[in-house]
């Protein structure tokens, strides 16, 4: 007789979730353990002689009269030990018709919200509903068939949203970013974040922070958003309000800027993600400088206060030193990337409204009139505008 020992929970059901108790006794309503992640090569179960298993540990369902492994899709017998079942792909493990199976695509049939909790999955995810406010999703490829509300969605590869993204002014659920926002009111980076390691496609977005190493295609309008793009950006509707950081081509089909003078900034010629890092470092440095000044003023009051604040002051100085080194390195990279600025193009077949600020490399231009069908580019360290109309 044989016994199948599991290295995952064979009774796991995503329909019967409850908040997970952590070893420290805490409980989190936003983490329900919606999925049992496994990686390729991970041992899932092992067949052992029944005599080696204590009677109290035996589950009658997993006692086998013969040496037989319940191997299902995306699972295999271990190369060196045929009594072990290993995962043959990254995904989630579950029992399907009595066989241990691994599935690479996670379908969330409803909204991602309180009944799923935050989801972290090593394969691809398809959310058939919305991603609700305050929740987070991270996976390889992400498809959201509904809306993305004020939440965080990260795809290691591509992200596609079919109904659009609308963030709001709520602060980030992430402590660190909340801290950054509070420290720098001027930056007003939206707390809603959609990030892709590859490409990102969506119908519209408003008050959101988009980051993509590849291209971003927006089928409608992009309103009041911060966009960091490593490849090209295509906006088929309006690009109105907010700031775009890009280093290649930006194509705005309908309209750039707003009727009401909402500032719309386009910054090109530098790596968008270096820009992001630099923004974070500068925000943090400015916060730390304020803290340092505060600690120094408190320390100068009397000896007790000096002792009280000595450690904090030491730590602030330590972090400031590390950050200024980082800042220097980032600036060096900035200078190197600036050489690519002459290849950047901002193409607007539609209208360009007054008040748009366009930075390419060291050049700057602010639009004062309404124009249409134009291209912005860098020449002799100046941003120039030329008409695309054929005369």
């Amino acid at each position, binding site marked *: 007789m044989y016994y199948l020992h599991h290295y995952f929970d064979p009774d796991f059901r995503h329909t019967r979730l409850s908040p997970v108790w952590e070893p*420290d006794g805490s409980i989190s309503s936003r983490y329900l353990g919606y999925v049992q992640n496994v990686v390729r090569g*991970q041992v899932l179960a092992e067949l052992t002689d029944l005599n080696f298993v204590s009677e109290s540990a035996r589950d009658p369902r997993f006692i086998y009269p013969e040496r037989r492994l319940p191997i299902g899709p995306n699972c295999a017998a271990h190369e060196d030990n045929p009594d072990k079942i290993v995962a043959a792909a990254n995904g989630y493990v579950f029992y399907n018709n009595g066989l241990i199976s691994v599935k690479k695509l996670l379908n969330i049939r409803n909204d991602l919200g309180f009944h799923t909790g935050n989801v972290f999955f090593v394969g691809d995810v398809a959310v058939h509903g919305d991603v609700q406010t305050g929740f987070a999703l991270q996976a390889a490829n992400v498809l959201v068939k509904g809306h993305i509300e004020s939440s965080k969605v990260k795809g290691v590869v591509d992200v596609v949203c079919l109904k659009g993204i609308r963030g709001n002014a709520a602060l980030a659920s992430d*402590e660190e970013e909340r801290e950054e926002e509070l420290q720098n009111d001027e930056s007003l980076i939206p707390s809603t974040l959609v990030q892709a390691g590859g490409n990102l496609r969506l119908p519209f977005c408003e008050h959101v922070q988009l980051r993509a190493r590849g291209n971003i295609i927006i089928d409608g309008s992009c309103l009041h958003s911060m966009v960091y793009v490593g490849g090209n950006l295509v906006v088929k509707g309006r690009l109105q309000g907010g700031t775009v950081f890009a280093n290649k081509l930006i194509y705005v089909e309908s309209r750039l800027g707003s009727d009401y003078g909402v500032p719309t900034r386009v910054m090109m010629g530098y790596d968008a993600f270096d820009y992001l890092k630099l923004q974070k470092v500068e925000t943090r440095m400015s916060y730390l400088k304020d803290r340092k000044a505060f600690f120094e003023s408190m320390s100068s009051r009397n000896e007790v206060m000096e002792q009280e604040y000595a450690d904090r002051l030491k730590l602030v100085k330590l972090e400031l030193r590390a950050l200024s080194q*980082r800042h220097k390195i980032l600036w060096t990279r900035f200078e190197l990337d600036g050489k690519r600025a002459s290849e950047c193009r901002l193409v607007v077949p539609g209208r360009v409204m007054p008040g748009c600020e366009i930075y390419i490399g060291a050049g700057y231009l602010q639009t004062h009139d309404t124009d249409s069908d134009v291209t912005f580019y860098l020449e002799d360290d100046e941003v120039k505008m030329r008409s695309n109309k054929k005369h």
Partner: protein
Amino acid sequence: MDYLIDVNPLESLAEVLALNIAEYKDDSRYACRAFSAHGNERQTVFGCFQGRIALKDNQEFKAALYDLVSENTGKVILDFKDVHLSRSAVGVLVGFAASMHGRNKRLYLYRPSPQIRASLLELELLPFFRILESEADVVAGLRL
């Protein structure tokens, strides 16, 4: 396996950094040490692991990881410079990353060994983890 799961809270971050991470890693009594930064309710925990972590060690490894986290923990930094992780241990690490993500806490790998890097790369999991390459990155990533 030669890692242990004792956690030693230190009062001052500067003290920890002054110790030099490489120095206390030689101390076989500790696998991980926790420290908190002054002025921040959210604690940063530094976990230092050593040795080869195989399937038989999974339960202990999992317990060691979860022992690092408490209610006040905002960030966990795992030092994996001298660690060899089996695929099953990588699975445990992914489970821990999922738990951290789910609870809005941050997980960093500090100088992961070439074997871990290669494993994560082969499994296409490297982008799921934030990697810190130097001590300066650790300091810059700490919140006071």
